[in-house]
């Protein structure tokens, strides 16, 4: 349903609480606290929301689930006034508020608790809370005492205890989140939206948060919980809305469903791109030489807040095999690849390639040892957008294209023309700036480069993200070819189908550890899904 009523969404006059004068008693027809219908939102070529919808009743905890990229955050940003939908309607408590501003949303009682905290680290809890609505004495002086008192009062009322004078930078993650929640409550939020709140919390902090949310709900607040963690969906929510690829797939009462069904709805039945094309496992190249390939022993990596983002992981990737790592993003996959590639320092453990210890080696010397890396973020890491395609094709190996310190442009062009032809990179102009290419072609440049040099181990991280179907097939074929040639490939992907189609063995990463490692023949979406969302915990094989 296209079009918005009322134009720009600036509501004139009216009741700030958003409750319309309705002749019908609300107990007979409970007015949805939130009603979003037909929401479309695109960012350039990416369609984040395609006709998405959401209906949340007052006083319930409503889980909004889906994988990364399903469109949940975008939908909530539209609700919160951080962006306007391209099409569709938004109603809050029966009032059409499509396209409103953040200030209007805050005034109407919507409070968004962001995944990445919007807190000023050098300021105190109280200062962060009152920012934008500071209490004043005599009109100009900030009344710190009253701010602190107000914070303490709210703290006690909600059970979210935190001392107002503490600096944000001194707080633990769980405490900082408490402040974020207090911040929206401080502004009178009655509808709270929490975006992946437990992604950064430890198990005890998670349980604390659940208690807080239940208490808030009991006090009359409406809560929308964006998450992909099914254990908390099952524990907390009254109703679930499942999103996938920008659309709303299902709305269902929690009591009427099972975790397995939710997982199935989340992950979906998309066309398996490599269906039926599984190549028979070729013999491992080089026989049982135990030191060939990638070996990782007891790897631990600490993150920015001192937590272990990778916790004692051990595995190996033999020549001629693809080890796929499945898992919802944010469980340590990114950090694992970065540590292996040399872009992140290692806290403990060893990394070996073909028997050589590369744990302390620089990126360049890891390349020398036979490591290649398709990075998950081609715009930031994989390509220099202002450089030509030809120049991007030699990034990382430029020394092999130079003699006496001067780049041999003839060989660079030759290489470029060859790779453009083999990988069907379009437009086939080596002098184009990389930023002029489509996502799929950009990725082909990265793949061509990383697979074009001599390597024994390839790290492929989200290799087909944002890539069109034809290019996906092509890249998959490249990976399989490399495998046939006896290379070892570590594949990390949030696309379960991709992992299933390509891997010989599959590991699932959950909270920094391998929850399981199994042969691909034994794996399926259901089985893996349960490990991915933490409902099943095994021991890593």
């Amino acid at each position, binding site marked *: 349903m296209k079009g918005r009523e009322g134009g720009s969404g600036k509501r004139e006059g009216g009741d700030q609480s958003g409750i319309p004068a309705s002749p019908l008693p609300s107990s007979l027809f409970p007015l949805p606290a939130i009603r979003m219908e037909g929401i479309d939102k695109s960012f350039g070529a990416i369609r984040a929301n395609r006709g998405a919808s959401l209906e949340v009743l007052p006083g319930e905890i409503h889980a909004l689930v889906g994988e990364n990229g399903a469109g949940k955050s975008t939908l909530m940003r539209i609700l919160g006034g951080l962006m306007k939908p391209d099409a569709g309607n938004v109603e809050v408590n029966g009032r059409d508020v499509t396209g409103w501003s953040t200030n209007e949303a805050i005034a109407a009682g919507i409070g968004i608790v962001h995944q990445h905290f919007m807190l000023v680290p050098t300021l105190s809890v109280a200062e962060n809370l009152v920012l934008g609505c500071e209490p004043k004495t005599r009109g100009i002086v900030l009344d710190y005492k009253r701010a602190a008192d107000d914070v303490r009062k709210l703290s006690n009322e909600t059970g979210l205890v935190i001392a107002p004078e503490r600096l944000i930078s001194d707080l633990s993650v769980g405490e900082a989140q408490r402040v974020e929640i207090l911040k929206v409550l401080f502004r009178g939020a009655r509808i709270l939206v929490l975006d992946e709140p437990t992604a950064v919390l430890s198990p005890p902090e998670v349980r604390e948060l659940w208690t807080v949310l239940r208490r808030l709900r009991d006090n009359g607040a409406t809560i929308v919980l964006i998450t992909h963690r099914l254990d908390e969906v099952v524990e907390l929510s009254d109703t679930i809305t499942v999103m996938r690829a920008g659309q709303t797939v299902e709305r269902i009462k929690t009591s009427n469903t099972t975790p397995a069904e939710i997982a199935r709805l989340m992950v979906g039945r998309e066309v398996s791109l490599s269906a039926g094309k599984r190549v028979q496992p070729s013999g491992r190249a080089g026989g049982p030489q135990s030191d060939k390939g990638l070996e990782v022993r007891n790897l631990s990596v600490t993150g920015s807040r001192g937590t272990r983002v990778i916790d004692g992981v051990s595995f190996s990737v033999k020549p001629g095999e693809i080890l796929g790592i499945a898992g919802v993003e944010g469980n340590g996959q990114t950090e694992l690849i970065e540590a292996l590639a040399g*872009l992140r320092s290692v806290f403990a453990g060893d990394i070996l390639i073909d028997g050589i210890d590369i744990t302390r080696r620089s990126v*360049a010397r890891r*390349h020398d040892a036979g490591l290649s890396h398709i990075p998950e973020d081609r715009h930031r890491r994989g390509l220099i957008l202002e450089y030509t395609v030809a120049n991007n094709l030699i990034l*990382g190996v*430029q020394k092999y294209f130079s003699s006496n*310190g001067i780049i041999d442009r003839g060989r660079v062009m030759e290489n470029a023309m060859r790779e453009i032809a083999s990988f069907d990179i379009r437009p086939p102009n080596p002098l184009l700036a990389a930023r002029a290419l489509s996502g799929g072609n950009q990725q082909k440049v990265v793949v061509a480069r990383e697979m074009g040099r001599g390597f024994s181990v390839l790290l492929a991280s989200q290799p087909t993200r944002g890539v069109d179907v034809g290019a996906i097939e092509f890249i998959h074929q490249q990976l399989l070819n490399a495998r046939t040639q006896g290379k070892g490939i570590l594949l990390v992907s949030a696309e379960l189908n991709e992992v299933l189609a390509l891997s010989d063995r599959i590991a699932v990463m959950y909270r920094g550890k391998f929850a399981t490692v199994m042969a691909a023949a034994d794996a399926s979406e259901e089985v893996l899904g349960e490990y991915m969302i933490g409902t099943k915990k095994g021991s890593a094989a």
Partner: protein
Amino acid sequence: MSASSLAGGTRPTFSAPPWRERAEEALIPPLVALLVALICGDLLILSYGQSPAAVYRLLLEGTWGNAYGFGQVLYKATTLAFTGLAVSFGLRAGLFNIGAESQLAAGGFAAALAGLALPAGTPLIFALLLCMIAAGLAGGVVGSVPAYLKTRFGAHEVIVTIMLNFIVLALLNWFIAGHLHVPETLHTPEIHAGVLPRLADIDPRFHGSAANLALIVAALVAVVVWFYLFRARGGYELRAVGLQPPAAEYGGISVNRVWMRALTFSGVIAGMGGINYVLGYKHYYEDGFASGAGFLGIAVALVGRNHPFGVIIAAFFFATLSQGGLAIHAFVPKQMMDVLQGVVIIAVATAVPEVRRILRGARGRSDA
């Protein structure tokens, strides 16, 4: 390999060839700035009750219209070329060298000392080479300080180079005022060796102007910088660091080492600029000869879009403004040129992000 061939479906996804896109993004801001400068100039000239057309004609006649004027333009452009190349070299690595003035002064000082130390009668090429090396080394030493502080301590080079400017200039002043000056002046004695011939010595029409063969050195340095940036492996790595440090790091390039090299060599280039005044013009080091050349070097780098050949053109532009101010002094105060300088810089600085935004928006370029 792939089943689909190049024969089918190679429709390009944009309309302009790559070089034209880059040219547009590079050239439009300076042209916009030129336009703004012209308008501003018109206003200032009119406020003096003069006719802009007449004044501009006089400006051109006094600069490019006669040999002496053109010689002065050449002389000033030479110094600006050196500092402009220095600043743009640093900027290509993503680093801001605001210290070109002190590097220039240090280089001139070193050249003067070398020229004094060498006995008179030293063969010219030999003496010139030694003096130039001295100048480059001195500039490089000064440039290596912010380089070291940045790579080792993460100290931001903008502030460090500004502070170092004052420190180095004060130091040089102390050397001169205390020990090395010719009485009643603030300059060193005349050098014995390493004198660069004036243009006037070759072509008498340039008689009286300060233009000298240092301009050939400047042109050579521009070519060398161009070659390094666009043909050498080191330049490939340097530009990568300047464009996208995370991608450079991913590609195995050592960002710290590139920064160290970039700022140090930026200092070397600026230092070599000292030969223009010291070896080619006055034949001594004089306190304050570098005044303003550092900041103007920033302007030159900016208007020249950080490209060696653009820098040369921009150097000529600013030199023309400067000399032109003198030429029109009877009608409009030369101070007008000082105003125009500032206006041009702000106009270009403002135009660059704006033009990029407009052009990329108009082409419907998504980053996907």
